[in-house]
């Protein structure tokens, strides 16, 4: 049972990495990162349940961790997308191929 969930999360993680590596639209890259984060969250929850089944001290640690991941994701979206908009206003593009300078 655990392996099923781990397989799913592994595939999602791989998809996310593939998206980050192959896409050039920075927004799509952000979305792929969300996929990766979700795969991690899934693992946290699955292991949390496993922990519960073998009688760990707190069966909800994984879920609490997942909540923090969500917080990070929300913060990342707010700042990251703000950056994307600022970038778009200045450069008129959202392709990472065109944003290769550290300073302009």
């Amino acid at each position, binding site marked *: *049972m*655990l*392996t*099923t*969930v*781990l*397989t*799913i*999360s*592994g*595939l*999602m993680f*791989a*998809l996310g*990495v*593939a*998206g980050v*590596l*192959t896409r*050039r*639209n920075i*927004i*799509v890259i952000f*979305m*792929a990162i969300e*996929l990766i984060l*979700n795969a991690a*969250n*899934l693992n946290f*929850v*699955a292991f*949390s*349940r*496993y922990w*519960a*089944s073998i009688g760990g001290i707190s069966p*909800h640690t994984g*879920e*609490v961790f*997942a*909540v*923090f991941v*969500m*917080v990070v*994701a*929300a*913060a*990342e*979206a*707010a*700042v990251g*997308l*703000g*950056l*994307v*908009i*600022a970038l*778009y*206003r200045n450069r008129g593009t*959202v392709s990472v191929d065109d944003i290769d300078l550290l300073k302009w």
Partner: protein
Amino acid sequence: MYPDLQSSPWFLGAVIAFGLWAVATGSVVITAQRPVHAALALVSALMAVAGLFAVLGAEFLAGAQVLVYVGGVMVLFVFVIMVVGGGRKTAEVEPVSGVRFLAATVVVLVIGGSIVLGARSAQPAFELRPGPRAAASKDAVRAGVSRNTEDVGTDLYTRAALPFEVASLLLLVAIVGAVVLAKGRRVEQDD
């Protein structure tokens, strides 16, 4: 909600169904030509993950997932896509035709394959069990209603109180950052 569900074949079936859904829509996310379609697919994938959470007994997390991701983060994404003109297909520069697809496949196969193999080789004794149920604790008003929210809340505010504060600080910084980024635009216009 129904304690006997997790040991039933329905449980495994639900996990697999949600998992397939998540993986299928997840692959649409990275292959869709228009960002807005990718965003829609991501919404779908996130819902599937929320479904997985719910099946695994993390109901609070499922609700938070939909509320935070779909209602908040994804609306932001769609908003930004609208601002930067997401209708147009993104120009993907490919040195060699099809190399991108090839790379994606290789990545998925290598990373995904190794993770899956690793998971498969894990101990078969791993068994998922539901968290503490209301049926066991007489405190809840209604038998059968999971105490997941209460438990996560207790954990969050006792054992994880410090990380919780740190996370709230992070959110504050993010808000300030977003405000600064948004303000920067007006400064540009004035000069």
